[in-house]
C-alpha cells in the first residue's frame, strides 16, 4: 500500500528580513520558518568550538503554553544534521511560527525548519523528513488531520535523515504496540522518500523560476 501524504506546498524565501525563510504547507497545517544566521552571538552564549543553535517555536496564540517539547525535539534533530562546527563562535536562530494547525504540527515544523535551512544555505549533512502516524484500534493512518488525530488512541512522530535513511528522532503519545511501531516505521520510511522528492522538486523549481 502506497502511503498517502496530504498536499505539500512550499514557498521559499517569502520574507525579506531573514537570511532564509520557508512557508511550508502540509494539507491545512501551515508553518512559517525563519532562519537567521550565522551571526554574532553574545559572550555568555558563545561556544568556541561550534555555532550555538537556538530554536523557537511560536504558537498561534501567545497565551497558549509554550511548546518546549517541540523546541527541544526540533533542536536535537537539527543539532545532529547541521555542520555546527563550520561556524564556531556564531549563532544560528531558527524561528518556527505556527499559522494554521490541522494535525501533524510537529512534523510540519520539522520539515519547514529543514526547508528554511536549505534556503538560508546553512551547511547540512543531510536533509530530514518528519512523518506523523496516528494509531487507532483497527488501523494506522499516515499524516492525519486534526479530527483524525483527536479520535486516535496514539500517535508517533518519526524523523528520518536522507543519507542512510535512518531514524534520528522519535516521539510518541498514547498507547502503542510493538507491531504498530514497526508498521509506522515502514510507512514513514516510504513517505519520507516522497518528502525528499518534494524537496528536490521544489528547490529546482525555485531556482529555475528565479534565474
Amino acid at each position, binding site marked *: 500500500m502506497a502511503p498517502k501524504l496530504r*498536499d505539500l*506546498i512550499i*514557498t521559499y*524565501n*517569502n*520574507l*525579506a*528580513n*531573514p537570511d532564509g525563510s520557508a*512557508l511550508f*504547507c502540509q*494539507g*491545512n497545517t*501551515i508553518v*512559517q520558518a*525563519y532562519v*537567521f544566521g550565522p*551571526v*554574532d*552571538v*553574545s559572550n555568555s*552564549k558563545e561556544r568556541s568550538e561550534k555555532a550555538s543553535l*537556538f530554536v*523557537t517555536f*511560536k504558537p*498561534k*496564540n*501567545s*497565551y497558549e503554553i509554550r511548546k518546549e517539547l517541540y523546541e527541544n525535539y526540533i533542536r536535537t534533530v537539527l543539532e545532529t544534521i547541521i555542520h555546527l562546527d563550520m561556524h564556531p563562535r556564531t*549563532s544560528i*536562530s531558527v*524561528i518556527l*511560527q505556527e*499559522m*494554521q494547525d*490541522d494535525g501533524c504540527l510537529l512534523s510540519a515544523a520539522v520539515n519547514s525548519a529543514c526547508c528554511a535551512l536549505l534556503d538560508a544555505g546553512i551547511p547540512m549533512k543531510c536533509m530530514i523528513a518528519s512523518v506523523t502516524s496516528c494509531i487507532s484500534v483497527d488501523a494506522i493512518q499516515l499524516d492525519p488531520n486534526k479530527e483524525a488525530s483527536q479520535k486516535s488512541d496514539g500517535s508517533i512522530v518519526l524523523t528520518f535523515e536522507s543519507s542512510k535513511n535512518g531514524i534520528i528522532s522519535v516521539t510518541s503519545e498514547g498507547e502503542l504496540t510493538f507491531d504498530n511501531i514497526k508498521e509506522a516505521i515502514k510507512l514513514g520510511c516510504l513517505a519520507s522518500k516522497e518528502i525528499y522528492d518534494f524537496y528536490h522538486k521544489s528547490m529546482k523549481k525555485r531556482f529555475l523560476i528565479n534565474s
Partner: protein
Amino acid sequence: MQRLKPKSIPSCNKNFIFTAVKDDKRIDGRSSKDFRKLSIGFGLDYGSSVVSLGDTRVMCNITYQIAEPKAVKSCEGLLNIRVDLTASMIHTYEKVVEIMRMIEKNVKDSRCLDLESLCIISGEKVYALETDIIVMNDDGNLPECCSIALLASLSHFKRPDVSVVEDKIKIHSFDERHPIPLNILHYPFCTSFTFFDNSKFVCDPTQAEEQVCDGYLIVGSNIYREITTIHISGKSAITKDVVLNCCQLAIERSKFLTNFVKLVVEQDLKKRSTEGAEIGYAPLIRESSSVLCSYKKEEIELQEVQENYDDDDVIIDLEVAQNTKMYRYASDTVGIGEGRGQNWDFIDEFQENVENDENEDMYIEDEETTNNEDEPDSKAKQFSKRSKNSNKYQEITVEDDLSEEEVQILNPPEFK
C-alpha cells in the same frame, strides 16, 4: 532569544533618500503621497488574518476566553492586545511597547469595539478577546499594518453564542447555533508619515526611510473624520499646517481602508458560506498570492535617466594624475587628493623640502643618462644623490617621530 544588530544604512544611501525626497521621488518608484500595495488574506479560523503592505507582513490571531471582568467596568468584556516583534529580531523592547501602546490607544481607547456586548453575567463572566499581532516581516510602517491586521481580524472574528440558565452558562458550538460577529462601531486606522528636513514628508515609509528620517508622525483616524490618536516623535520641528495636512491625508486613507477591509471580510465570509470552497491560507499559498508568498519588488519605470557626472566624479586623465599628490597616512594607507586635510605649518615646510629634493634627484637622473661615460663625475653625483636620499629618509623618520598623525608625503612613483 538572540537579538541582531539593526542594519546600518550607509551615508550615501541616506543622502540619496534625502535628495530624492526633495524631488518628490522614492526608491520604489512611488511619489511622496503614494501607499504601497495592500493585500489581506484570512485563515482557517475566524479572526486570523495576514496583511501585507509592500514587504511588511503582519499576522493577527484572535481567540477568546471566559474571564472575570475588571471591578471598575463590571459589565464590559476585555480586549487584550499583544504585539510580537521577535521575528524581525532587531527591535528593542521600547519599540515593541511603543507600537503596542499605539495600537491599544487607537483601538481600545477610541472605543471602536462594543465591549458591553461581550458581557455574559455582569461582574462575573465576560468574554476576553486575546489578540496576538505577530510581525513576520518589517519593512516600515508597522503601526498602519498592525492596525489594519487587527481591525480586519476583529471584523472577521466570530464568537460562539452563549446562554445563561440559572447562573450556569452554556457555550454553544458553531454547529448548534450560528456564531456571532463582534460589534464594531467605527474603524480607526493608524497612518504614519516620516519627515525629512524642510518639513518634507512621505506617506507609508519603508524601513530605510524610517531609519534615516528626522522624525515621524502617526495619526489614527476614522471614516467620520475623527482623530483617534496622534503621536509625533523625533527631532524634526513640524509646523501646524503640515500636521493638519497629514491628518487630512490620514482621513482619506482611513476612508479607503475602511471600505477595503469591509469588502475583503465580506468576500471571505461569502466564500465560507458556499460549500466546497477552499478556505484558509493553503489556497493562497498554492496560487502564490502576494499576501503570503512573494516579496517581489514591483518593477520601477526608469524615466529621465541620463548619464551625467557630478563635479566630484571627475575621470582622472594622465595629466591630472601626474599633478595629483598621493598622501601616505600609514604604512598601508595611501590617499589621493585632499582627504584628511592638514593645516599644520611644519607639514608645508616638509612638503617643500621633499619637492626640492625630488626635483634635484630628477635633475641628477637626467644628467646621469646623458653623461654616462664620465665615470668619476657620475660616481660623485650618484654619491650625492645617495646622501640626499639618506637625508630625505632621515628627514622622514624625524618627521615621523615629530608628527602625531604620522603623515608622510611622497610623490607616487608610478606617475613619474
